């Protein structure tokens, strides 16, 4: 309360960010491990891979972002490109 010019907010404190991320990692680990102990319905062969959806989600998003960076090289122009 000593600093009157600016209130500190939830994520101004790095420890809160840290806590949020740790909780998030814990849920990810839980979901991956849980997958090994339950029986899922299988509709197609790929789904037999343990934690298939977790792996697919991670790989898909990394691939998406890396491909989007390549796309940026191809299509990115200046903001006023069409105004010239």
């Amino acid at each position: 309360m000593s600093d009157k010019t600016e209130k500190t907010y939830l994520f101004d404190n790095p420890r809160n960010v840290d806590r949020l991320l740790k909780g998030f990692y814990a849920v990810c680990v839980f979901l991956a491990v849980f997958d090994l102990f339950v029986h899922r319905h299988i509709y197609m062969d790929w789904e037999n891979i343990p934690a298939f959806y977790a792996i697919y989600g991670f790989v898909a998003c990394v691939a998406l972002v890396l491909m989007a960076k390549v796309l940026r090289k191809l299509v990115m122009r200046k903001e006023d490109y069409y105004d010239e």
Partner: protein
Amino acid sequence: MSELSPFLIYFLASLLVLASPAMIRNALLLATPVLAALHLFFNIEPGMTASYTVLEFEMVYLRADKLSLLFAYLFTLASFISTVFALHVKDVRQQVAGLIYAGSALGAVFAGDFLTLFIFWELLAISSVFLIWARDTERALNAGMRYLVFQVLSGVLLLAGALLHYQETGSLMFDHVGLNGLAGWLVFIAFGIKSAFPFLHSWLTDGYPEATPTGTVYLSAFTTKVAVYSLARGFAGEEILVYIGVTMACFPIFYAVIENDLRKVLAYSLINQVGFMVTGIGIGTALSLNGAVAHAFSDVIFKGLLFMSMGAVLFRVGHVNGSDLGGLYKTMPKTTGLCIVGAMSISAFPLFSGFVSKSMVMSAMLMENYDYLWLFMLFASAGVFHHAGIKIPYFAFFAHDSGLRPQEAPLNMLVAMALAAFVCLFIGSQPQYLYALLPWEVDYWPYDLTHVLTQTQLLFFSALAFVWLNKQGLYPPELHSTNLDAEWVYRKFLPAGVQRGLAFAHNAKKSTVAATVVHMNSIRRSLSESSIAKYNLSESWPTGSMVLWISFTLVAYLLLDIFIYK
């Protein structure tokens, strides 16, 4: 009275709004969707039809069945939420345009024949463009013009297709059309433009981000969903739609990742979501068709919610560039929370609306053995969480602190967003009420261990990818930029081509004239020096040239006679 089509309520209200003083306008605006909803609920039942005859044509202005009623409920709800969101707007232009636009959407889904459909199809185009123009910037004016050209073109194709269809079948009734013959294809492309098929989509990503903060909320609700309805009625089970739908679900997410204007990100994700609906329509089973229309229902509400949250930011900050936002959660916590509800709904988290509708399309794909395409759709599902679920709330409200401390959104905006958020959660947790409205008979329940676990895994690990990429510094930063898309063809390539063509023609003319003058002068000189110059006939040019032209004409007649009239 019970056979009154609900669009009339909206059209009458728009006249009243024009004539009434500012004091009672808001009351009128709010009463309209409520009245329409009551009328729909109490008076209109599946199986009702009403028409009148013009010349020899039967104009069916009311054809109620479960399909058209589902969309009618949706449009009334969407127009109510959008009206609340726009309640602070004093611009009569936008109020009237909003009413006619929503009314036309209702008119279109109840239209039983092609002519009636065409009329509302064009009214949708003409009324909606005012929501873009009302931004009153030159950019918006130009974008609106381009938007209008596409929309009107779609209408013209629809009319041409409908007339051909009439010639072939002798009927103008709008039922299953199918892709046999030119008529079917014309109607298909007309619907395709309005539902933003790949390469025909740029009116959407070009126009929507230029509309007013409240206008985009209206725009996102009606045009594409009327098109989805029309595809479901006219082209259910056409396999080409599966491939088109998968393309629509996949390509926009790449653009969405690199786009800086957050409303344009949402425009791309709108195409991505319509891709799921189009795929469902293409598969054509009861489950997939139900999934398609159920997803249209969820999408209007959660996409509306996301556009509203970005509209609120635009209203308070003046722009929605990801590169210049961040840290807004500090002063707009309610908008932040409501935006996150929309983000979780579009990402299809269990208990949110996207989950109960999208999973129907995904399940239907597996049942019909579209295994590889299903993998693409799973990729698109992960991608939508990435760009709409995380990127929108993260870059607007968290990320780095931009130093902006805008006020919380006005009360009417918060109420509208809260309403939409409630509907998202209600549909997501109590899907039986939405399922009861679905047109086809099917027994489906989304909540079992497999679905919930796999979807949660997919989403959490997509989020993990976002966190990892950010920590590694691999995530592409938000940059001020323009990304080339299909509109490049008509905004840059064709104009540049025409300009180059004109310049070429101009130069060609100049050099031809110069060469001819030089040549003529040398002929004239040699003539005057030759012995012919002594003849009277060539003493003065007029007579000389007259003789020359007469002989040319005679030769031309001769040639015509030989080659054409022989």
